[in-house]
């Protein structure tokens, strides 16, 4: 008898059918632990999806309590994209329109441009207690939150003025997706990256025009705008990667995660042509060192004890090994790994008044570990984790790239490849 080939006809966009209800995801959900109002990844994800496909009225606004850390997906033995099922359900079914507050938090580009233009005025004002109280009452941005300081000179401006010309001196080139944080808040990180890449023999260029990766727009429900920016960025990446054969690197784990994985899956913006060559600077450097094409020389007098925190999106990418391996190469570093746990801020999530308590509750075990750790500072690849850890612990936070830049003997490193 000839066997019939059976083609399933009821496969959903997401693979919720793969869920065998083992509930392992619920064990690793950091929100569930502190906020019982959240139904948990299994119920919000695959269980709820069954119902929502039948009738969209089964959508529950409590899904907004998910902070999209994706730790459920990492834990799932069957590869169910639980976090994406939840995110997509929010995009598809939520009837609540984003508030003004959400738009302010999500539009990092516009707010960043304005705030950095008036940085000397904006910084002290938003730091004032009464102002924070007003923002708390009017905008529902929790008064405990300190806004990251805005810079007086944006990274892009600095780059054009002081760095751009020199970059053509190199034989090899990369583009840098600096992201909003480096541009508006912390240009030093961008400067550190250029220092390292130049020392490694690479000229660093900016994209023709980059826009915010859109992660905050996605999480605040501003999907149309996020999609528009995603399309713009993919085109800009193509010009670098496909046209000029220049890979794009970044220092922000969340930006890279969004561009690589959220663009196609959540926004439907295709990125096959650029995905493989869009990555983190630490991974780029690791590859060069691992394949013997680059050797970094470090200063002898750099001595620090540091703890590494794995941001959720680094955990999901599986890439923290690149940052930690680079850090461990520095001879004077006494390295400790923190338990991989969510710090609780999750981008704009922790800024919202309604989430403040959850956010701090989620982060508490991590804060306790950091405070008890006796390190000089914490290293991490995510800017919002940095804000959260600095606000909630006694320790300062540095990006691995900045640590490398400080420990690097630039001249000795350059000599090795110039010879």
């Amino acid at each position, binding site marked *: 008898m000839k066997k019939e080939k059976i083609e399933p006809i009821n496969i959903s966009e997401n693979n919720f059918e793969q869920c065998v209800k083992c509930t392992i995801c619920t064990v690793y959900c950091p929100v*569930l632990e502190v906020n019982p*109002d959240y139904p948990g990844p299994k119920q919000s994800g695959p269980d709820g999806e069954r119902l929502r496909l039948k009738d969209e009225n089964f959508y529950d606004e409590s899904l907004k309590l998910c902070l999209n850390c994706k730790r459920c997906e990492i834990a799932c033995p069957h590869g169910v994209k639980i976090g994406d099922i939840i995110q997509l359900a929010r995009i598809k079914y939520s009837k609540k329109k984003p508030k003004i507050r959400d738009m302010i938090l999500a539009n990092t580009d516009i707010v960043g441009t304005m705030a950095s233009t008036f940085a000397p005025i904006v910084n002290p004002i938003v730091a004032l207690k009464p102002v924070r109280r007003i923002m708390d009452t009017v905008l529902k941005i929790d008064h405990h939150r300190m806004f990251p300081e805005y810079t007086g000179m944006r990274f892009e401006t600095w780059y054009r003025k002081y760095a751009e010309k020199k970059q053509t001196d190199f034989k090899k080139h990369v583009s840098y997706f600096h992201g909003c944080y480096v541009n508006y808040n912390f240009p030093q990180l961008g400067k550190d990256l250029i220092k390292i890449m130049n020392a490694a023999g690479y000229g660093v260029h900016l994209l023709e025009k980059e826009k915010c990766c859109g992660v905050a727009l996605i999480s605040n429900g501003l999907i149309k705008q996020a999609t528009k920016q995603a399309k713009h960025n993919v085109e800009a990446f193509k010009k670098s990667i496909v046209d000029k054969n220049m890979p794009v690197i970044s220092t922000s784990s969340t930006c890279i995660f969004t561009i690589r994985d959220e663009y196609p899956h959540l926004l439907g913006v295709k990125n096959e042509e650029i995905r493989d060559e869009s990555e983190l600077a630490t991974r780029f450097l690791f590859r060069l060192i691992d394949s013997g094409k680059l050797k970094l020389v470090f200063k002898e007098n750099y001595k620090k004890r540091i703890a590494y925190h794995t941001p959720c999106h680094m955990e999901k990418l599986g890439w923290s090994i690149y940052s930690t391996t680079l850090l461990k190469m520095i001879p004077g570093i006494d390295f400790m790994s923190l338990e991989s746990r969510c710090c609780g801020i999750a981008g704009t999530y922790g800024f919202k008044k309604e989430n403040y308590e959850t956010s701090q509750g989620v982060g508490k075990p991590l804060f306790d570990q950091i405070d008890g750790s006796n390190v000089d500072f914490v290293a991490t690849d995510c800017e919002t984790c940095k804000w959260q850890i600095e606000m909630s612990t006694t320790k300062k936070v540095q990006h691995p790239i900045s640590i490398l830049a400080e420990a690097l003997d630039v001249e000795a490193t350059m000599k090795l490849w110039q010879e």
Partner: protein
Amino acid sequence: MKFDNIIIGGGLSGLTCGIKLAEQGKKCAIVSSGQSAIHFFSGSFDFLGKLNGQEVKNPLEAIKTLPDSHPYQRVGVENIARLAVEAPLLLNRAGLSFLGKADQNHFVLTPMGIMKPTWLTLDDFTRFEQKNTFPWKKAVILNFSGFLDFHTLFVQDGLKKFDVDSQVKNFAMKEFEAIRRNPSEMRSTNIAKVFDQGEDALNEFAEKVNLLSEGFEVVILPAVFGLFNKNVVANLKSKINKPLVLLPAIPPSVPGIRSQIFLRKRFEELGGTYFLGDNVEEGTLENNRLVAIHTKNHGDIKLEADHFVLASGSFYSKGIVATREKLYEPILGLDIDGDTDNEKWLDEKFFNDQPYMHYGVKTDSHFRALINGQPIENLYVAGSVLGGANALKEGSGAGISVLTSLHVAEQILK
């Protein structure tokens, strides 16, 4: 990225293999696609519980009569006896205290209220030497109101067969009202997290237990204590006036997750790298050697090693896959020991020994995987992906996982 050894699969088998190799100073990595079946742990590791439907008293004697194709026979009876002594010591060094011997099964009370023969039992749980009697005659079975994963009536029914007079009592605590708000998430791990957080809840709980157990000889509770903090169980036992018997609840299992965390921690403390949530997509073979594997997360940065171990589990973990058309090993396309004709996979009588349960990756006598009949010199196979046994029928799953992986580690260390 170069390692001495790379293990594909992060479950019991992969972790024990990784720990043994790392203890010998090897630079190891484990690639795990997600969290493992240790989350379903019942508190005991079985070595051989049943043979031909008969309960086994001395597993080390009994394995001599197993067929030649059985993993225990293939490792060799003497090797197995030696490794069975080594295994609990290795677990102990990871901070997991197991008691039991391979030459004499002891018994544990199951949540179905029956005595089951087993090999090693975690110190959370109570070991019994006799299968027909229960040492206490009056038991109170306690459960948290709203906790649906512990079926007290089964336990009560089971105890009746041992002439034990038992009473079921449910009770509430204010700490659990919050969790109960969410009907589907009153799960053992969430209960455990409350007790992990501080003494107060545990003190209040112990007081309640002492009150409710007045007039009874023994207290029976679901094993929902000590998720990240292993001292909770001992602490609870010290606060309760009566002997305490913990019974496994429906998974996820609290002591199981703790065991997973401890094993992984031990592996990492020995310098091992644990890649969680990553999938091996393909391997590069050269001259009958596996030189590198490619994973989803690491893309063009390949993972290289001198030796590899495949400990990817059986059908449930997708270590082997069956579709309507074929039976295959999904990562490297290794040879499979199993019938190609899908009509022969199943026995139509559900409770019979199902043929597919014996299927696994084909290996040579050194446990090296084969492709088209040729051994891959540096790819070893361990754990349930090996096949050759019906772990469910025999009660041999954990024993095969642990002992074949220790054996494979020894092959690599030779």
